[in-house]
């Protein structure tokens, strides 16, 4: 177990290092690193001094090491666009995105798994086929259009849910949350659905096909032959086995939620980091872009780390190292 965790951790760090390399290259070769640090109006001497201080006259690996060192200490540079430390900008916006991604993930998981199981068990039923086809619409229209359509339906026509923003948020010091107020929770509904719909569809189809596969397995046939009830067979035996291959993929799908939040945040004027990222791309705000990249990677890696642990807990075969190689 420990070795497994360590290896995963090591891989996660490796991923982060590569991402750091990408973001460093952005800094080094696209943006002007000096301007990042001191702002564009600094004098020539300031720049030269800075150049030496930063070791930009040093070989690339050393520079990269220094960059990683700065990142680890939370120094991400200063935004070109607004002139404030990137870390502050992100910290202000992160709670919004994380709460949105969290709700979307829960939505995608609950409905994805639920519908997946349903459509697998009732494969030939009309309702299952209808869900399957309908779910395709979720991946056949761009997210932004679905978002706008939802706004017009639920906000303008039905007037039951807010159309933009986070509603009332509660400031808990380092974290502002929308979970503690009614309007905050209501505001989460539409964006979370919009963001989660795509992943939900994917998870649902994945669960369905895995479940169909598992339902054909010998141990399921044997479980039936033992006279177990349908419930025990479907939810006791089949579902658990289905989830094992599905978990990995779900990790990947959910891990990219933060990145996908860009679109949802634009449509719903959700004050999160994705929104920030859009403006930074438009204004070539390299420090922000680079930091966002790291952030998305970090989120992805963390989710996958958690998923791997989960994997480990669910599948006893892993503990004995029988199937250590996960591919």
């Amino acid at each position, binding site marked *: 177990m420990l070795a497994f965790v360590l290896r995963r951790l090591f891989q996660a760090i490796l991923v982060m290092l590569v991402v750091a390399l990408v973001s460093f290259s952005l800094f080094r070769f696209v*943006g002007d690193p000096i301007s990042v640090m001191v702002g564009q109006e600094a004098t020539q001497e300031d720049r030269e001094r800075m150049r030496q201080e930063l070791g930009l006259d040093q070989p690339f690996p050393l520079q990269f090491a220094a960059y990683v060192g700065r990142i680890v200490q939370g120094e991400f540079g200063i935004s070109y666009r607004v002139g404030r430390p990137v870390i502050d900008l992100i910290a202000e916006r992160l709670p919004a995105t994380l709460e949105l991604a969290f709700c979307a993930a829960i939505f995608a998981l609950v409905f994805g798994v639920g519908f997946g199981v349903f459509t697998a068990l009732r494969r030939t039923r009309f309702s299952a086929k209808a869900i399957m086809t309908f779910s*395709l*619409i979720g*991946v*056949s*229209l761009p997210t932004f*259009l679905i978002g706008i359509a939802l706004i*017009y339906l639920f906000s303008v026509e039905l007037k039951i849910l807010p159309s933009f923003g986070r509603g009332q948020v509660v400031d808990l010091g380092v974290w502002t949350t929308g979970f503690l107020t009614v309007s905050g929770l209501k505001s989460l509904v539409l964006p979370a659905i919009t963001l989660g719909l795509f992943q939900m569809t994917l998870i649902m189809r994945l669960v369905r096909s895995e479940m169909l596969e598992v339902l054909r397995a010998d141990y399921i046939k044997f479980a039936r032959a033992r006279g177990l009830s349908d419930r025990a067979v479907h939810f006791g035996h089949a579902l658990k086995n289905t989830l094992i291959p599905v978990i990995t993929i779900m990790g990947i799908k959910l891990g*990219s939620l933060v*990145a996908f939040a860009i679109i949802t945040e634009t449509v719903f004027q959700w004050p999160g980091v994705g929104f920030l990222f859009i403006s930074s791309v438009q204004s070539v705000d390299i420090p922000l872009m680079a930091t966002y990249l790291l952030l998305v990677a970090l989120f992805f890696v963390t989710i996958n780390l958690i998923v791997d642990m989960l994997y480990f807990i669910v599948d006893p075969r892993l503990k004995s190292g029988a199937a250590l190689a996960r591919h």
Partner: protein
Amino acid sequence: MREASTALPKVSLRQKLHKIWDSDIAYSFRQSPVTMAAGLVVILIFVGALLAPLLATQDPFNPAGLNLMDGKTPPLTANEFTQNVYLLGTDDQGRDVLSTILYGSRASLLVGFAAVGLAMLIGVTLGLIAGYRGGIVDSIIMRIADIQLTFPSILVAMMIFGVFRGVLPVQSHATLAVPVLILAIGLSDWPQYARTVRGVTLVERNKEYVQAARVIGLAPLTIMIRHVLPNVLGPVLVIGTLGLALAIIAEATLSYLGVGVPPTQPSLGTLIRIGQEYIASGEWWILLFPSLTLLALALSVNLLGDWLRDALNPKLR
């Protein structure tokens, strides 16, 4: 000896066609009205896009051919200034919606196919190598795939656009849009193919027919291409069809985020982006028709992919 070779039955084209028609896949296709409808839609859109210059009443790429006064003409209604009538109306720039859809499908299909093609090329090659070689090569390739998975296509595309904006002169932005989209989507989607191909290759590699080929002394490359590759194409095709729909939508999304194809060179995505501004204003046709086209295209491709997945899975038959 001689007679033996001549005794081999000649298979006529007719028989071949009949065999294809009679095959299980073709049969399951014929058995599913939904799939056939989806196939028809895809073919229609395809032909429409291919023949756009012939079918379209105007070339929306050529600004000289447009008359702004034609703008916002409702479908099948005479324009109040020019008295022109358009089947699906015109957009805010006076472009015939039908023509823009035809041309727009071209851009979308181009991006979709090229991106999926690129992703497939990279993914299948790397997946084959990783699966067949194993060991450290495998580890390296799969770790790279893991890293790539960290970044979904929109993020990669936006990054590339962001960087290009920073380093390249503006004039090139418009011309670069399509290649960058292809590159971005292609680059971010390959791990799926690589993973699948690698998985299948790992299985196939240990099958006895591959060992038999090794005993014969065939070179690894020959074995990979002749023996392993045909066996991985099935699943790859399935991911490919589904990926195609996703790529087309990714293109639309990037247009919405302002980093896609420029509005003067419509793709289905830009058309929808333009149209969504009119969602409440009464000019419904500007949004509706491109959206329906995209929906029909993506839905059909997805349905075909779904069908293919089931049809190629012997266990589901």
